[in-house]
């Protein structure tokens, strides 16, 4: 075994460790495939106008099938997973649902991570009063039953002035109010865990010698936080991001089921919620397709997230 190359940064070390786990690499590729689909779906939508424009029924497209829900068949590539009760291709629907999943996952988790990280950094580094305030905020938010917070926020965002303001933005044509709503709900309800972790870690890091040195050298607080402290807590952020991403896309399913989720764009949550009455009629293929899609993405992110954590925190293996 060769001697460790001490000129490599911790990040590069971590990446090498990660690469050794071949399954994790496989799932990373899977994730990339999903991401590309999401991007592709968005591009197609931009090209064809608002989301549902493209969703022509198979009959419109000249495929000679009856317009009702059909089980998977090999008549046309679009019918590989069958059709929904409105004659739309399940496969195409699932494909476009990827976009919603990614918007929800990236933006929802992103928002949550930004809030959690920022507040955690502030609380950990600033003086006691600010710290107390942040702790108070997150204690209170965490004490409110999740269901109530989620539904109340959903109602608030979807009606009234917030909804009107949102609708006046141009991109609200591409990211519907419902989607925006989910992002906000997830962002505002999932940040507490990260905040706690970051705060604790920052408190530890703050006492390290080289931070003292930096302060002695006269570096400003902001610079210290971003240049010196943040890199030390960033592994927490990454891990938490992957966890929240998963939580976000799973929440989309529940929120849509409750009727406060995505209503305009096709989404996996919609297809699963529709399965509620479809299963009764013996229509199982939309549930299978959307369930598999969801499972695949979640599994990939979970696995990669785990591997990331193992890679970034070598004490565990």
């Amino acid at each position, binding site marked *: 075994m060769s001697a460790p190359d001490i000129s490599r940064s911790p990040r590069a070390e971590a990446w090498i460790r990660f690469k050794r786990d071949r399954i994790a690499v496989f799932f990373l590729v899977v994730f990339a495939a999903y991401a590309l689909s999401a991007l592709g779906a968005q591009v197609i939508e931009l090209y064809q106008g608002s989301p*549902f424009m493209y969703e022509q029924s198979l009959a419109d497209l000249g495929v000679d099938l009856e*317009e*009702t829900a059909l089980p998977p068949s090999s008549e046309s590539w679009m019918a590989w997973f069958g059709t929904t*009760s*409105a*004659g739309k291709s399940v496969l195409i629907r699932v494909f476009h649902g990827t976009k919603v999943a990614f918007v929800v996952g990236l933006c929802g988790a992103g928002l949550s991570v930004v809030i959690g990280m920022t507040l955690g950094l502030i609380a950990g580094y600033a003086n006691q009063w600010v710290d107390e305030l942040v702790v108070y905020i997150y204690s209170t938010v965490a004490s409110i039953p999740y269901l109530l917070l989620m539904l109340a926020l959903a*109602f608030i965002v*979807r*009606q009234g002035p917030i*909804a009107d303001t949102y*609708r006046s933005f141009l991109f609200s044509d591409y990211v519907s*109010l419902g989607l925006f709503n989910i992002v906000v709900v997830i962002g505002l309800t999932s940040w507490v865990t990260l905040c706690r972790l970051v705060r604790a870690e920052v408190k530890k890091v703050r006492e390290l010698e080289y931070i003292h040195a930096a302060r002695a050298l006269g570096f400003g607080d902001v610079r210290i936080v971003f240049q010196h402290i943040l890199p030390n807590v960033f592994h927490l952020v990454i891990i938490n991001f992957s966890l929240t991403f998963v939580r976000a896309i799973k929440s989309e399913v529940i929120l849509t089921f*409750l*009727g*406060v989720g995505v*209503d*305009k764009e096709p989404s996996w949550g*919609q297809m699963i*919620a*529709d399965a*509620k*009455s479809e*299963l*009764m*009629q*013996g229509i199982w293929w939309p549930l299978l397709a959307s369930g598999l899609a969801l499972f695949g993405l979640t599994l990939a992110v979970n696995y990669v997230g785990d591997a990331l954590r193992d890679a970034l925190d070598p004490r565990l293996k």
Partner: protein
Amino acid sequence: MPDHLRGGHIRHPLTALLLAVLLALFGCNPDPYPGEEGAILHVGLRLLPKSFDPPSVEEEGSGKVAANVYEGLLTYHPFARPYKLIPALATDLPTVSEDRLTYTFQLKKGVVFTDDPSLPGGKGREVTAEDFLFAFKRFAHPSTTTKGWWLFDDKIVGLNDWRDTLKKDLTAARAAGESPGPLWGLEREVEGFEVVDRYTIRFHLTKPYPQFLWVLAMPYTSVYPREAVEHYGAEFRNHPVGTGPFKLVEYNPVYRAVYVRNPTYRDVYFPDPKNKPAERWDGWEEDEKAGLLVNAGGKIPLLDGMEIRFILEAQPRWLYFKAGYLDFLNPPKDNMDEAIPGGDLSPEMKAQGIRKDPWTELGVVYTCLNTTDEVLSNVDLRRAMALAFDHVWTVKHLYAGQAIVAKSLIPPGVAGFDGDYHPYQADDGHAQIEKAKKLLAKAGYPDGVDPETGRALRLVFESSGSGVTQRHFAQRFVDEMRKIGIQIDVVVNTFPQMVDKMRNQQYQVAGLAWGFDYPDAQNVLQLLYGPNKAPGIGSANFDDPQFNRWYEEASVLQDSPERTELYKRMAHMVADQVPWITRTHRIRNNLQHQWLQGFKYTEVTDQYFAYAHVDRALRDELLAEWNRPTRWPLAVGFLAFIGLLGFSVSQRNRR
């Protein structure tokens, strides 16, 4: 260190636990009614009931649970169609005076309330005219929370004055520091409610009110004893005391209501048209052929008891029915909540012997356009929108064929129906896009573009709920409007929010449905009567002077050609002015298992379950056959677990 924990046997506690779990699993069986006996009707309700208290029984949930413990003066014949009123606690239909302002009812003698601790001696006592007087006055009392006041408002002589005076006096009493109870001032006389003698009650109306008899068959006007109200107070809503065929024995407002046969129920017999010509009704031969009359002549109720479970989710409700744990599946009354699974019975269902009993509902599904909205007050815009609808597609895909296109807001079979006049709906029910676009241009929105913004005209659609089907309907509306270039923003509301918006005129377009309370077109036309507009029951805020005149004229006429003509004219105006885009009359299917007898689904009342019967032996036999547990997956799982355990032990020992 204890012996059993040495050397690799650490899994014993774990194994023991899992074995215990498995044993429990093997003991499981799917019967949700353990230990039940007798002919019991099993009903599934998709809503939670709110109250048994008659003035508060206004929605489907409360209606279903209260129907069989309470009775009023009149009710509906369980089998006759079109719906026919028959006496319940009255001896016969009332004697009505020449000027149609006085209705006199004779009460049946010897009818008793069920035994209840609130009554003297705990035994049920006889029902008299005084009891009816009490019930009616309480219904009108200002302290009684009810949504049904409009049924009596301004109709009974002296009642409005009585109510207004009471209100004033109550406010004064409260201001003076008193705390008047809910029955305060009830003893005051009302001229319009007259107790002639112990068994005779008379009503004096302020003006002819042809719908009065229908009202007396509604749950609002059921009779109950004063003692019960005084004894139970606010709890009376959960503790009914009535005269009905069933008696409530257990009630959990979030789970179920359980009933037994009322042992002191009066004598009512299942009609026997075959042997007694006097009891015949139109169409009795078909009912006979359908096997509905097998229990003719028997004493009601035939059932030993009834259990209504409140199953909110569609999947478990459907599975329950399929497995035979519900005797019939009852489609929802209003709300576009559920697409009925499939139009035709599947082969599996036929093999189970399930019957399908279709009927076209007395109601209409419509898209409501707020005529006072600044954009939608443009009648050409409304007409254009109407033409863009493809009703045939809706029927086929959103209803699986279980609906007919609504040619008029009045359903077929009700006086006033005219299927030929629909200027803004194609004869074949398909969309007429070209015509719509022309009208749209005429309305000032060429190609759907709003000249003010330069972009597509945007309208807001209020969806009345968050269910899957409501989403489909909303989506469909979005698609249809896009065909003419209009962009729709969908807002999803909870029920309270929807009620709010309707009341305050705060909406543009709403997806609604109306179910008739009684088989008279007035019941739907009243929604478009000007004075009823918001904050009243009216929708679309429609207010046309000519319409109002016709409505007022018709409101004092009995059922007659003149009145039907007026109804037709009003319906024509609705078709012209398009405050509503009428869409469909839903076809409902009442699915029944083969052991259910004498059950003909009735839309306007729920008081007919007492005529039903259940062949318990047949049911138990079939259920035992259908619901045999499949235990092999458990065995497989167990073996797999053992295998894994053994494998890991061997791995361990190898180390």
